């Protein structure tokens, strides 16, 4: 068990990519009545309109969360960091809650119809992160940033709960948002997430030397001549962007962002540039697989995808932990 093979980045990458392709292919074949291998000819419209965008959307959102998780864990040098660390989850929930309240009131302003629930979630997540940054007076102090994130999360979460109590008719909608769902991802949403992913992936890989430097300690990073402050801003911005883009389209998917980097590091240890890319792939596989199970397991009923990511990711992490405790912890270091 503890002799788990450490593979090369390339090896892991093509394994994950293959798995991903398989998931997308199978994803097109799982319909409302469960597995539908035979009817793929008659279901072409359904596949193109519904199954393909939702499968791709799940993978893209997973990739965004995986990337965000790897960024967060690298930036905060904390294996417990996840994409929602800076309050974006509570911010997004609050945005959705406000959106649903507006939606349930009769007089809707036309701007709101255009922004929609997705827009509200996106703005909420962004504003929460911005608030955390302002309250921590910048990005220099990791601890202050984390605490500000916690405070913002708690306060915004409390306001969202208050709205839920005051307007009970929005409870169902907000709750289903908090559980996450990949069921209603459309083609434009896929395009949007793909654009964000491409941009953030390229930028974060380019800025990843900072994470490698930070892994050795803040002062080491500085002494290496890295522009720590400005790169931190960039990476935090990317973290917020990835999280907000994923959350807006699929709701609060639990655990993918936390688990993906860990699952990658269990198989590959190396520089952050590669870990980030692999975390993208791992996140995509995780959420893509969870999406598949969510609609396949109890078809035609659909399980909330967030519940499955938690069970799947959590289960695998426990399995990894078992291997860790019984064997050498030296190689894994404190950063797993």
């Amino acid at each position: 068990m503890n002799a788990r093979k450490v593979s090369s980045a390339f090896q892991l990458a093509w394994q994950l990519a293959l798995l991903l392709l398989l998931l997308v292919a199978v994803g097109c074949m799982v319909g409302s009545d469960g597995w539908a291998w035979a009817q793929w000819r008659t279901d072409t419209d359904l596949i193109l309109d519904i199954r393909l965008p939702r499968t791709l959307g799940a993978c893209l959102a997973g990739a965004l969360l995986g990337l965000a998780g790897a960024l967060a864990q690298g930036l905060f040098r904390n294996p417990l960091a996840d994409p929602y660390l800076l309050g974006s989850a509570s911010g997004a929930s609050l945005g959705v809650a406000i959106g649903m309240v507006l939606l349930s009131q009769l007089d809707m302003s036309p701007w709101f119809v255009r922004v929609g629930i997705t827009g509200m979630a996106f703005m909420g997540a962004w504003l929460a992160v911005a608030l955390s940054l302002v309250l921590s007076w910048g990005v220099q102090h990791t601890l202050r940033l984390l605490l500000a994130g916690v405070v913002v999360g708690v306060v915004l979460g409390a306001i969202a709960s208050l709205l839920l109590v005051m307007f009970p008719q929005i409870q169902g909608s907000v709750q289903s948002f908090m559980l996450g769902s990949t069921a209603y991802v459309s083609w434009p949403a896929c395009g949007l997430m793909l654009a964000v992913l491409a941009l953030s992936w390229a930028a974060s890989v380019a800025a990843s030397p900072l994470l490698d430097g930070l892994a050795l300690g803040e002062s080491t990073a500085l002494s290496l001549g890295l522009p720590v402050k400005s790169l931190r801003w960039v990476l935090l911005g990317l973290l917020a962007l990835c999280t907000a883009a994923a959350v807006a389209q699929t709701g609060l998917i639990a655990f993918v962002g936390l688990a993906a980097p860990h699952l990658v590091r269990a198989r590959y240890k190396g520089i952050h540039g590669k870990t980030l890319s692999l975390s993208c792939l791992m996140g995509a596989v995780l959420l893509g697989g969870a999406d598949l199970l969510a609609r396949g397991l109890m078809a035609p009923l659909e399980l909330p995808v967030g519940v499955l990511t938690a069970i799947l990711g959590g289960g695998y992490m426990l399995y990894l932990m078992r291997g860790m405790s019984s064997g050498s912890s030296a190689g894994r270091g404190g950063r797993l």
Partner: protein
Amino acid sequence: MMAMKLVRPLVLAGALLTGAGVGLIAQAQQTETSQVVKAFQLTDDRGRVVVIDKAPQRVVTLLPSLGEIVCELKACELLVGVDRYSNWPDRVKSLPKLGGLDDTQLEALVKLKPDLVLLARSSRVTQRLESMGIKVVALEPQSQEDMHRVIQLIAGALHLPNAKERAETLWQSIQQKLDAAALRVPAQAKGVRIYFEAGSGYFAAGEASYIGETLKRLGLVNVVTANMGAFPQVNPEFVVKANPQIIFMGERAANDLPSRPGWQRIEAIQQQRICSFPPAQSDIIVRSGPRIPEAAELMVACLKRLYPA
């Protein structure tokens, strides 16, 4: 918990706390063309203008009250799918169930090839359906007056023959049945102070709600006045102070009524004047659909039990 059961359909009726009957007034205009194809144009509750140019043959409703209206307009055979909470009339029970407003089964819905989907404003599938070219109309009856409008819009949207008359007939029959129910209220019950608990956590059905409208029509005085909102959450102390003479609530919530601190002082509890409704009846009472007269009858039946002539 019963009360929770009460809340959920309320939520689905989409009509909680929204300030009954204010706001958007959707107008329907029938463009005057030949008798064969009249395009029907309406502004739905999202403020969207929807043009329905031919008579829908396959209709899906995602709100129990909307399905009930379609059936009461004698167009039940047009329905091909409903939400999971729809359970009336019997024909609806055999139709495919497509989930709720927050977890609608998109693919199952699209597979039914509907040409019109009636849903609530908060529905999550609205945009996805529209992007696939399916006609979507969001309608939520907020008050009894508002239901008149919704019935007319649905009759028009379905291109029913004599749509206007049919809608008017349904509306008039609802009104007549309500008047008839009001006449059967025992004389001693008139003007009595009442409190209607619509959901756990002291959510009351105020005078401004459609439930409150029915209660008012029966000659009862709601302790939760119109200025407090349609379904406000009230302080338990407020109810004790208001001292209602009758309490309406769900069956299970009624069980622990005596154990609520201080509530023994309330006249309704001292004199055992409690109207509690089992889940099947709650469905009828909390939906803002065409079965409001039935809801009124249930209330009257209870009043008769409490005040035997």
